């Protein structure tokens, strides 16, 4: 060893006035066993016992139409094929897909609605299973966004900003709360494709990325097939025992290097190899549904036995939740019905309604709905006017950012409650607008986090999920 003299850390910092200690220094010095992010502990957490311990975000990619599912507008029947009044349309900018259209004829929903639950919530006939949970659901009819195209809108929904580069919601939560399971990542994303022949918009790895946060907070994508996590399986010829032997050698040799260099990164690498090894058994165990009882598959519906479907992913979501994974995000693609909407949305609901309800049922049955926040929704809504040809039973709808519907359930959310009101055309918000930032602030609040305090310094500025916006919508919460 050399003869460096030893300084007290604060004094060294005084000497290097202006040179701030790095995050790594902070994080590196705490034991890995501490699962809560130590720097944030006590700073951002405002509730010692948060309502929600985890989130299951059922992202419906492509933008489900609120008019066919949640925002019941019986009055539109009389407006069939009449032009949407200019006074309603206002100065809303249009996408390039309908800005050339000469008329904006109103298309009433071809789908019927019924009232459900004690609260009498109006829900679409396409959601018979979800409707059974009407009294658990808090329906927000007035979510709104600025973006009118998929990529910016989905990026805003996920990261609080229309353009890439910022951390996903799940990455923020992973950064703020850490993991409850040492064998699995804190943030998991899963994607399913529609079963029907519909337009499945592409997604983007950044949507579950960690942005400027260290990449250990990024979402890990689970998929069906041989490797539920990329590079999970050992190569051919390498059995579990051969892998274990190799890992022991790696650990021993790394330990020798550590004893010489004292670089904490080496110790961290030893730990990460161990976690990788644990994941190699934990993930296949998680993905193996063979021990699920047959009634589970009955509940989740006919698609649930096909790996990679939304239904199968919903079962996995419950299994991840059971294992303490903090943030579970499902994406179901295919909601972009610019034409043939009634047919397309039926097919999408076939894919999603029963499994979604089964997931709620499972969580409830296991007592986990009390501390799991479930969110269902897409990146924007759809226009009341038809895109393309309009008939009573067929039409399309363009993108609509000014109002759309999402629902939340579980952990401290006020069930059987409808929040917000839109105008007769489901075009503008009449009362109680909820911006995406408000939704995110509310979800963080349920996780026990003050959204204004969960920050990360990047390029000289403290960034947060809600940027400089967002209010917790107290009305959505149980008293």
């Amino acid at each position, binding site marked *: 060893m*050399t003869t*460096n003299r*030893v*300084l*007290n850390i604060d*004094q*060294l910092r*005084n*000497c290097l*006035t202006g*040179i701030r200690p*790095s995050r*790594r*220094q902070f994080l*590196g010095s705490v034991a890995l066993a501490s699962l809560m992010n130590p720097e944030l502990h006590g700073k951002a957490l405002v509730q010692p016992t948060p309502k929600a311990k985890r989130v299951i975000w059922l992202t419906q990619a492509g933008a489900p139409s609120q008019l066919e599912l949640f925002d019941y507008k019986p009055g539109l029947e009389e407006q069939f094929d009449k032009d949407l009044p200019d006074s309603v349309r206002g100065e809303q*900018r249009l*996408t*390039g897909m*309908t800005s050339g259209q000469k008329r904006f004829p109103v298309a009433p929903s071809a789908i019927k609605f019924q009232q459900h639950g004690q609260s009498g919530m109006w829900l679409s006939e396409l959601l018979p299973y979800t409707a059974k949970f009407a009294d658990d659901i808090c329906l927000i009819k007035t979510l709104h966004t600025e973006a*009118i*195209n*998929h*990529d910016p809108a989905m990026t805003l929904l996920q990261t609080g900003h229309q353009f890439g580069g910022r951390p996903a919601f799940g990455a923020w939560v992973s950064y703020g709360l850490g993991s409850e399971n040492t064998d699995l990542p804190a943030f998991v994303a899963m*994607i399913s*494709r529609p079963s029907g022949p519909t337009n*499945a918009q*592409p997604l*983007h*790895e*950044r949507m579950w*990325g960690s942005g400027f946060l*260290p*990449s*250990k907070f*990024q979402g*890990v*994508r689970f998929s069906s097939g041989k*490797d539920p*996590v*990329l*590079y*999970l399986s*050992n*190569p051919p*010829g390498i059995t579990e025992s051969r*892998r274990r032997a*190799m890992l022991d*050698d*790696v650990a021993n*040799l*790394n330990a*020798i290097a550590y004893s010489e*260099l004292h670089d904490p990164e*080496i110790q*961290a*690498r030893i730990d990460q190899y161990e976690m*990788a*090894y644990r994941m190699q058994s934990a993930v296949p165990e998680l993905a193996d549904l063979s021990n699920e009882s047959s009634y589970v598959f009955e509940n989740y519906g006919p698609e649930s036995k096909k790996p990679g479907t939304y239904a199968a992913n919903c079962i996995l979501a419950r299994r991840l939740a059971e294992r303490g994974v903090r943030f579970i995000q499902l994406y179901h693609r295919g909601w972009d019905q610019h034409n043939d909407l009634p047919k397309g949305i039926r097919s999408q609901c076939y894919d999603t309604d029963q499994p979604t309800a089964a997931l709620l049922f499972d969580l409830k049955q296991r007592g986990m709905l009390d501390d799991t926040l479930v969110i269902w929704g897409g990146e924007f809504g759809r226009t009341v006017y038809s895109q393309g040809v309009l008939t009573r039973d067929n039409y399309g709808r363009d993108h609509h950012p000014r109002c759309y519907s999402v629902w939340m359930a579980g952990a401290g959310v006020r069930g059987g409650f409808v929040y917000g009101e839109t105008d007769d055309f489901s075009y503008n918000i009449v009362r109680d607008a909820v911006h995406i930032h408000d939704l995110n602030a509310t979800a963080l609040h349920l996780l026990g986090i003050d959204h204004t305090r969960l920050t990360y310094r990047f*390029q*000289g500025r403290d960034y947060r999920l809600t940027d400089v916006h967002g209010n917790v919508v107290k009305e959505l919460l149980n008293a």
Partner: protein
Amino acid sequence: MFRLCIALTLGIAAIQCVAADRVDFNRQVRPILSENCFQCHGPDPGQRKADLRLDIPNPWDRNAMVERIFSQDSESVMPPPHANKKISDTQRDVLKQWVEQGAEYETHWAFAPIARPAVPCDSELHSEHRVLVNNPIDAFVAAKLRSHEWTPAPPAAKISWIRRVTLDLIGLPPTPQEVQAFQDDQSEFSYESVVDRLLGSPHYGERMAVDWLDAARYADTNGYQVDRNRELWPWRDWVIRAFNSNMPFDQFTIEQLAGDLLPNATLEQKIATGFHRNHMLNEEGGIIDAEFLAEYTADRVETTAAVWMGQTFNCTRCHDHKYDPFTQRDFYAMKAFFHNVPERGVGIYANPVRRNAPPFVQLAAPEIQSKIQGLQEKLGLTIGQLDAFSKSMDADLAKWLQDVPTKLPPWQAVGQSLEIKPSQEKTQKAGATLQLPAGVVAALKLEVAPVLENASFRWNEISVTQGDKTLKVVEGVDRGSLAPNEVIKVVDANRKTNIDISVKKGSSIHAIVAFEQPLQLSDPTEIAIELGIESLDHEVTWRFATLEGPAEFLVSTQTANLASKPANERTANEQLQLQKAFLSHRAQYRELAASIESLKKAIQSAEDEIPTTLVMSEMETRKTFVLLRGAYDRPGEEVFAATPAVLPPLGDGLPRNRLGLASWLVDPAHPLTARVTVNRFWQQVFGTGLVRTSEDFGAQGELPSHPELLDFLANMFRESQWDVKRLMRMMVTSSTYRQHSQASHSWRELDGENRLLARGPRQRLMAEFIRDHALAVSGLLSTDIGGPSVRPYHPTGLYEQVTAGTGYNVYEPGTGKDLYRRSIYTYWKRSVPHPAMLAFDAPFREFCSMRRTQSNTPLQALNLMNDPTYVEAARGVGERMLREGGDSPESRIRYGFLLILSRYPTDRELQILSSTYRRALSDFDNDRTAATVLLSVGSSKLDPALDPIELAALTTIATTLLNLDEAISK
């Protein structure tokens, strides 16, 4: 006792630093003000509270400030509790002291002119420090260490140094021969000669380019939702060449920002401007042009400010900066420099040439060009022949024109009608026999009508035969109700192209097909006709007719009408149309026209072989406005191209365009460019910049750890004509760089990031070099430089899940050496970058990025253990151990160790690996299948001469070594 000693030593150090006579505004005061006060009392008037501004010297009430920061009253204390700011007692004391000393301001350090600090003199250093000083860097570092009473680490072993420097300068490990040669070289300049060899390597440019590609946000796709391919790799090659030829950094700057505006700009200089076409392009259907045009120009402003000036201009897009003296107006005045590119906001481009969005240029391709020239000459000749032939037919044309309107031969009904009924089968075929009269038969008419109800069906085929012979028919022109471009779908012998027909009761639809060669029948002849249709819903009847006589009167209704028009009323175009209709019946004309078509196609496809690359170019000035709150549709006042007021002015002699801007950036008086640039190169070598926030030299950025050293290097860089290799050489030949990277726990705790540079740098390799390293040691690496991106191994199914769009939702891995090129050439799709790159902290390349984070995750372990890349590389190392590593297991293990870690194992290490080897050998001997399948991973050929059991055991050793922290660190 131990604690006491430390406290005692440090007491002195602390006094030296903190209790200096005067408070240093830039180092001590501004960071406190910026962090706690500027948000409400800083440069942004929109956010300013109480009309109080603390970032500039103006007459505010000094005492009130001190009072309020010390106040116990939550109503009056500053910063107010709701601001979430925490100010410590020490910081309060500093502010108080500063006020007592007169509250004097200094220019923010990064905006002050670059100083020329004297190199600390040798005699000022203790002997123990003096040993260290190899060049001026060491003198500055030693002086700083001395002021903290620290000593440097001893030099690293030669073998550690050569691994470190080789990875740093070329991104590849040293070969065993290079390690040996360096160890044997006892000459005075052994270190320098290694450095010179590496700086002269063509791989140096590849290594240097990786960081620049991050800064420039290089990728092979357009990004956003659709994320289709673009072609910009020639710019990447340009960067590699520029580093290799040691292009001075000022020229490097000017050519990339404004190469197209240089007088007589060369193709190379135009290619260089691809730098600012690297931003994303949105092709999503339905986007608004202006919105994304605003995005692209803003991206250029933000990238330029970050890369050359280390400033966070993105804040000023919507409002004046909250911490730094930049206004929103500055942002849009900068935008005006980048706003005059003839480009579009919507990235769907009709131009099919290699899918690039204008403006772009073609690369020089002499062979293809000369081929094109040959084709063009031939084309000219053929056109001449066609013209001559056309002219020779003028008299016949005139006669034909007279005859066409009147001499239409009648259609003669032939054969029986054919009834077709809906069938159980989706597809059905039905045929009829037609008796043709003797004479010339040019065409057939097929007419279909419903029997009882409106009918619809899909018509996909027709075939006509005479005995065994197929008579080829083509789409015919006539007053037919189905247009030729529809009829072509049934005569093309392709079932997938078809016509959807629906015909109403009481009406009919007909199609004309012409015989490719008109039939010359000496006797009445029987032909058979067969129709293929699908999904017929109601019964239909087909009737047939033939056209006898010369085919030249078979013309479209439109042509017939034109011909009836008096000659003097026809336009030139109409005349041409008629001429073409007439000539198309002459075989010679058809042949010439066909060869013109095929020549044109050949020219087009040759053109398509020439690589293109996106470039900047300048059109007339677009008006630029301040955009209120950054919104593209809310223009405010008009602005003109200008540089920020707080920096030295744009010289009078400089043009107000990109060329002027680039020249201004590299003007010797510019305080930022040289500092920011040397800092980035320092970061590349030492892991952390002298300014840790290499992207932010503003008030919120960190102060330099060694301000004098930073200025010394910046000044030297400027005065050496921006000589990058000289700067790199100075850094890697310093003793500071040569130090051992060992450190005690307590030392690590004190200076985890090695900011005082009391030890050598040690970092994990960047994502690209982890893979390159493995490929190199396995012998698989292809050392080709440059060219289009390639597709190495990739997990199957990944694209299908995430992406969409035919041709874009499947990843087709390359073959042969494409699998083993350096990672800088790996195809970079922004929506799904290669997962191994992402796992090791590569950015998405959507925006400028100047500093990668370094994480340590289980996904990295899984990648290194299980990616076929590394399984195959381990086998490659195993093969080399067998072939090149001598005859004993020990010598082979030692050789593999040397290959991967550039050193020999210690006894303990060798012992571990030897026992693993023995175990693996007997393990695989008992399970030979396992050995065979393990060795079958990867597409490189397995040497059949090698014993698979030995090789599998050595592959196990190599896998272990490739997974060591040391293998992926430098």
